[in-house]
C-alpha cells in the first residue's frame, strides 16, 4: 500500500497569495508529497492568477474578505466557487481528498459538500466557542461527518473540534523542513559577537504577539545582563516602537524587518534565547518548532498551545502569560546559566526532528490509508443530497 503512488487533492480555504500558517502548511505538504512521487493537486482562492508558479495549484477564483474571529479572513464561497470545486473533483480522479479547515465557510466546506469517498480534514485553529454554534451547527455537522478521518494540529485544535462538533481527531503536528535549519555551537555563536541575543519574530504591531510585554521586561533584563541585545524580526513600523523606548535601551534593541526564509534560518541559529511572549490566539506555534530546530532555547508564555508544544522534552521554559516581571526573571535565570542554555539547545535540536515533514507527512499518509480503506475513487456526490435534506 505504501509504495502505491496516490492521486491526492488538497483544498486550502484561505487566499493563496496572502501569508498565513495554513497556506504554508498546505504548500509544504504538497511539495513533500510531490517529491515522494505522488500526484498532488491543490485548489485555493487566488487573488492574482499571474502569481501561480506551481503546476499543481488550481485557482477557484478571487477570495472575498470576511471578518472572522477578530481578523479578516480571505475566503471564497458562492455558486461559481462551488461549481469550480465540483468540476475539480470530477476531473481530478483523486484517491483521497484532504480538506484544510473544513469548518470555515470556504472552499474546504464546499468540497466536503460536493464530494463522496475518501476524505480527510485537518483542523488548524483553536477558536473560543462560536456564539452562534447552535444555529450553524446543523449546517456544518453533516459536512464534518462526511470526513472519513479528522486531523487536529494540536491538542487545542482537537479540543475546539470536540467542543464544537463533539467529534474526535488524530493529533498530528504542523511540519517543518528540519534539514533546512542550521545549528551553531556555543563557540560559533560567541564568535559572532560578545552580545547575548534574545530573538523575537512576528508581526510585532499585533498586541497578541506580545512584543509590548517583552519591551516592558527589557529594562530589568538589561540591568541584570548588560551585554544583552533584543533582535526583533518581522514586518511592522519600528519607529512607533522605538519612540516609546527610553534612549538608553536603544543600544540594546535591533530591528531586522521582514526576513526571507534563508534569513530566518540564520536569524534563529544566531540566538541565545528565543522569546515567544504571545498572549493567546495561537493554535500550534510553528515558530517554536523552528527555533528548536535551530538550536535556540525557547522561553514562551504559558498559553496552552506553547505548553503543549514544549512538553515534548526539556528544550525550553515558560513564564506566566502577560506577566512581564516573570518574563524578565525567567529570561535572566536562563541567560545567566550558559551550561543550561547549551543543554536546552541540544535537547530542542533533538526534539524538533519529530516535526520534520518526513515524520509528519508519513503520519498524514497513514491517515489517508485509513480513510481510503474500502473506498473507491473520490467522486462528485449525487445531487449533494445530504445537505438539502438537513435543512
Amino acid at each position: 500500500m505504501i509504495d502505491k503512488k496516490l492521486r491526492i487533492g488538497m483544498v486550502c480555504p484561505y487566499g493563496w497569495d496572502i501569508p498565513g500558517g495554513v497556506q504554508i502548511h498546505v504548500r509544504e505538504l504538497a511539495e513533500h508529497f510531490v517529491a515522494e512521487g505522488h500526484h498532488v493537486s491543490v485548489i485555493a482562492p487566488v487573488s492574482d492568477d499571474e502569481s501561480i508558479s506551481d503546476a499543481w495549484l488550481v485557482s477557484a477564483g478571487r477570495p472575498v474578505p470576511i471578518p472572522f474571529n477578530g481578523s479578516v479572513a480571505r475566503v471564497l464561497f458562492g455558486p461559481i466557487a462551488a461549481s469550480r470545486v465540483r468540476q475539480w473533483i470530477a476531473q481530478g480522479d483523486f484517491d483521497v481528498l484532504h480538506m484544510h479547515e473544513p469548518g470555515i465557510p470556504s472552499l474546504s466546506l464546499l468540497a466536503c459538500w460536493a464530494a463522496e469517498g475518501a476524505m480527510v480534514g485537518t483542523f488548524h485553529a483553536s477558536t473560543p466557542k462560536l456564539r452562534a454554534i447552535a444555529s450553524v451547527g446543523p449546517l456544518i455537522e453533516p459536512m464534518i461527518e462526511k470526513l472519513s478521518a479528522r486531523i487536529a494540529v494540536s491538542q487545542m485544535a482537537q479540543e475546539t473540534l470536540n467542543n464544537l462538533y463533539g467529534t474526535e481527531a488524530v493529533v498530528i503536528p504542523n511540519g517543518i523542513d528540519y534539514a533546512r535549519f542550521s545549528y551553531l555551537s556555543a563557540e560559533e555563536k560567541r564568535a559572532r559577537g560578545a552580545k547575548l541575543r534574545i530573538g523575537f519574530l512576528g508581526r510585532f504591531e499585533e498586541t497578541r504577539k506580545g512584543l509590548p510585554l517583552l519591551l516592558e521586561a527589557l529594562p530589568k533584563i538589561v540591568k541584570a545582563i548588560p551585554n544583552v541585545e533584543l533582535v526583533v524580526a518581522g514586518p511592522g513600523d519600528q519607529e512607533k516602537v522605538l519612540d516609546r523606548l527610553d534612549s538608553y535601551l536603544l543600544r540594546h534593541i535591533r530591528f531586522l524587518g521582514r526576513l526571507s526564509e534563508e534569513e530566518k534560518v540564520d536569524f534563529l541559529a544566531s540566538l541565545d534565547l528565543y522569546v515567544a511572549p504571545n498572549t493567546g490566539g495561537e493554535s500550534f506555534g510553528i515558530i517554536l518548532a523552528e527555533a528548536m530546530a535551530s538550536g535556540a532555547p525557547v522561553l514562551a508564555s504559558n498559553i496552552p498551545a506553547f505548553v503543549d508544544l514544549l512538553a515534548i522534552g526539556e528544550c525550553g521554559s515558560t513564564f506566566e502569560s502577560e506577566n512581564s516581571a516573570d518574563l524578565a526573571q525567567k529570561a535572566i535565570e536562563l541567560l545567566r546559566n550558559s551550561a543550561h542554555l547549551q543543554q536546552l539547545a541540544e535537547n530542542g535540536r533533538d526534539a524538533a526532528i519529530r516535526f520534520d515533514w518526513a515524520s509528519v507527512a508519513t503520519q498524514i499518509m497513514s491517515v489517508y490509508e485509513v480513510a481510503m480503506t474500502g473506498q473507491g475513487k473520490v467522486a462528485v456526490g449525487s445531487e449533494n443530497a445530504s445537505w438539502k435534506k438537513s435543512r
Partner: protein
Amino acid sequence: MMTVVATALVLILFAWYLSFSAARLDRLHHRVETSWEHLDALLQRRAALALEISHQADLDPATALILTQSAYVSREESIADRNDAERSLSESLKFLRDSARNDEIQISVPLLDELSALTEKITLAISIHLEAVNSVSKLRAKMIYRLFHLAGKATLPKIYSFEEDSL
C-alpha cells in the same frame, strides 16, 4: 457703577451662552441616539432578511454558513460585539446581489427587491448617523465644551468599522 453693570451683563451673557451651548450639544446627542435607533432597526431587518434568503435560496453551504452565523450574532449581541458580523453581512450580501444579477444564483425577486431597498436605506441611515456622530465629536472637541464639562456624563459616540464599508 458702569463697570458693575457691564460685568453683570457680561456674566449674564456668558451664562446664557453656556446654557445655549449645552442645549445645542444635548440636541446633537439626541440626534445621535435617534439616528442610531433607526439604523439599528434597519440592521435587524437586514439580519432577518439574510436568514430568510439563506432558507429560501438554493445556496451553497459556505454562503449559507456565513449568512446564518452573522445574522444570528447580529440579532443577539450588543453592538460592540457584532461589528464583525455586520461587516460579514455587508460583504456576503453584496456578493449575493452581484451573483444574482449575473444569474449565477436564484433568489426570488421579492427578496432581492427587498434587499436592494433595504441596502439603500441602510446606506442612507449610516451617512445620517455618521454625520450626527461627527458633529458631536467636533463640538465636544471645542475648548468651551471641555472646559465647562458641558457634555456631562454622556459617552463620546463611536463610529464602528462596519459603517465605513461600502454596501
